């Protein structure tokens, strides 16, 4: 019982209570016992930004690392391919080299935007070139992109939201791990490679 030491004490009732003296009665924040929940990043989609989404791209373009991926368009899936397996897959049309650009939407959804890299001749499809430019703009401003077929590229809209993106604490390596948790190819025996080579 806290009755044996009921401090702080109120003045006797004959003296009007002085509200300025009551701060000692307020429970410290610790006792108010607010627990700060930690958000666990459980999913990182690999996709281009939705046409109705405002997003920002990682400002440090060093983070836009090149990766090899197999893109199965029919299944809408991408598989991460280690560089050492690239030789085995030489000539495979589904194998592409792209930058995985870390992005975040205005409601805090983190995703990796795969933007194709130039081919071996240094050529870049206008759509991919346009995507790259949009991502560059998105490093500084909130951006929305919509496909413009006549233009052969993306229309880029910008907005002046006051808030800055709240990036998660996870490192880029962790983002990649989460994004490709079940879609990383580690050997030539992987079912995706066997299927592409007609061995399945």
């Amino acid at each position, binding site marked *: *019982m*806290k*009755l*044996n*030491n*009921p*401090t*702080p*004490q*109120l003045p*006797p*009732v*004959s003296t*009007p*209570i002085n*509200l*300025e003296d*009551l*701060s000692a*009665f*307020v*429970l410290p924040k610790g*006792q*108010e*016992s*607010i*627990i*700060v*929940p930690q958000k666990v990043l459980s999913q990182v989609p690999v996709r281009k930004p939705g046409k109705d989404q405002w997003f920002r791209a990682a400002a440090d373009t060093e983070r836009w690392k090149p990766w090899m991926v197999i893109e199965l368009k029919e299944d809408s899936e991408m598989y991460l391919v280690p560089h050492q397996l690239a030789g085995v897959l030489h000539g495979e049309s589904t194998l592409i080299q792209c930058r995985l650009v870390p992005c975040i939407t*205005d*409601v805090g959804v983190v995703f990796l935007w795969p933007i194709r890299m130039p081919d071996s001749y240094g050529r870049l499809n206008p759509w991919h070139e346009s995507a790259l430019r949009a991502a560059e703009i998105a490093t500084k401003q909130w951006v929305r992109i919509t496909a413009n077929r006549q233009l052969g590229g993306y229309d880029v809209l910008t907005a002046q*939201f*006051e*808030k800055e993106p*709240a990036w998660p604490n996870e490192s880029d390596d962790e983002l990649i791990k989460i994004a490709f948790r079940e879609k990383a190819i580690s050997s030539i025996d992987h079912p995706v490679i066997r299927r592409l080579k007609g061995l399945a």
Partner: protein
Amino acid sequence: MTLPFKTITAVDFEFSQVNGNPKPLCVVAHEIMSGRRTKVWLDSNVPGDCPYGTGPDDLFIAYYASAEIGCHLALGWPVPARIIDLCVEFKLQTSGIEMPNGRNLLAALLHYGLTGSVSVTEKSDMQQLALSGGPFTDEQREQLLDYCESDVEAVARLWRAMASGIDAPRALLRGRYMAALAAVERNGVPVDMFAFQKIRSAFPSIKSQLIATIDEQFGVYAGDSFNLQRFEAYLNEKQIPWPKTPSGRLELKEDTFKNQSKMYPELRPLYELRWTLSNMNLFKLAIWDDGRNRTLLGAFGSKTGRNQPSTKRFIFGPATWVRFLMKPEPGMALAYIDYEQQEFAIAAALSGDAAMMEAYMTGDPYLAFARMAGAVPADATKASHGAEREQFKVCALAVQYGMGAETLAAQLGLQPIFGRELLAQHKRTFPKFWQWIEQVQVTAKVKGKLQSALGWELQVTGATKPNTLSNWPCQANGSEMLRLAVIAAVENGIRVCAPVHDALLIEAPEDEIDAAVCLTRRLMGQASRVVLSGFEVRTDVKIVRHPNRWGDPRGAFMWEKICSLIPGLSQNGTPTRP
């Protein structure tokens, strides 16, 4: 165990009533440490001195202490310096938990596995006997004293069971509130007795006329009966969206009408009419012969710790037109002082959201929110962008009650996408608030309880709704600040008539009301700073001087209609000239 009190005394009175105030009949006191017991019959003109200690070294224990303190005030005995109210502490310990037996003394004893004082029937018989006011035979006096003693014994047993779980500093502060509330209950609210009696006696005979008069603008009644098809047609014509039951019928609950009339003020008279017709209990208002509305104020009655007086007996309970019965006595004035946007301010301060605090400090947080979200230009005003402001106001309030996007959109009569967008704008503008709400939810679930700044609690169970958790901190801390304001106002000599949710109704002689208002507002500001670690919630005031009456503009239309239908009353409730 050494206790810092020379005496710890459980006290209980039996009393009859005079004008709603307790008239003490007898008192029994049991000093717990010495076991000394005192039984005194008081039904005489010479009450004598208080037979137990009331100083700073004496602890006074009771079950719902405002009744006992009311007896002290009636007897001219000093108000005990240290009070712990076991009813309040029991309510705190079970706040948020469904209690099938309620929270009276017998229920509390049962909860702690203790034997009761007397049976419910015996208790009711004894209370009726006391309220009869006498004269009492010797045998009846003996019965009342024995009953009073059994209750005191029960309070003492309950004390032993509960004491170890009581947070004394803050329990004593709550006890101090009960003492202040006793003074408030004793004061009561001044009522225009002429108008009240006229309306009460004529009311049944004007029912049909009243329906016809109010229904002129709606056309939803067939005779004296509310007609659902006509109401549906009215809503369609006016394009007012209306909540429906799961079976697709229009929802006709009182709360639905109340909420809808907030969104669509043109519906207010219809809501007031329906309420008035279904609650023809204007006669149950606790208005006494001395022209005051006095009733127990239901201290700590809700899980947020707010008062919960009987809506039938308390003048602020029924439809808003009834409030026009409040009228200062000759030479007196009434002032209604309320915290401005109290819940918004509390949410801003507790979450530490700087943008939200900044919005509050502009004086119009809803317009500021719209401005911050980019929905209105920087120079927008309430006049230039009233519609936008209203949307953002509804959104800000909806967020505090945990309302979803679709309900919000329905409230605004908009498509769901607009509700989603408004909520998204709130999240973008006040991100720290949303983070805090999430923290509150997690804390509640992990710790099994929430706690306000001065220790009021919500026990969280599997049945506690997420919306309750989101809204509870604002309500509970709002309740704390009003309690502090009541204590400070009463102890500084302000005549408080009633605490009303986030406001105080006070009275003073006409030439003193401005000073009383000034002091009360200062104290209310200080109270908010205590609870919110220095953040001040503004107050607003409305003063009325005799012969004007206090009224709620929302009920003005109905009040005028009713008065105009009653012979002898003018439209504003004053006597007509012969």
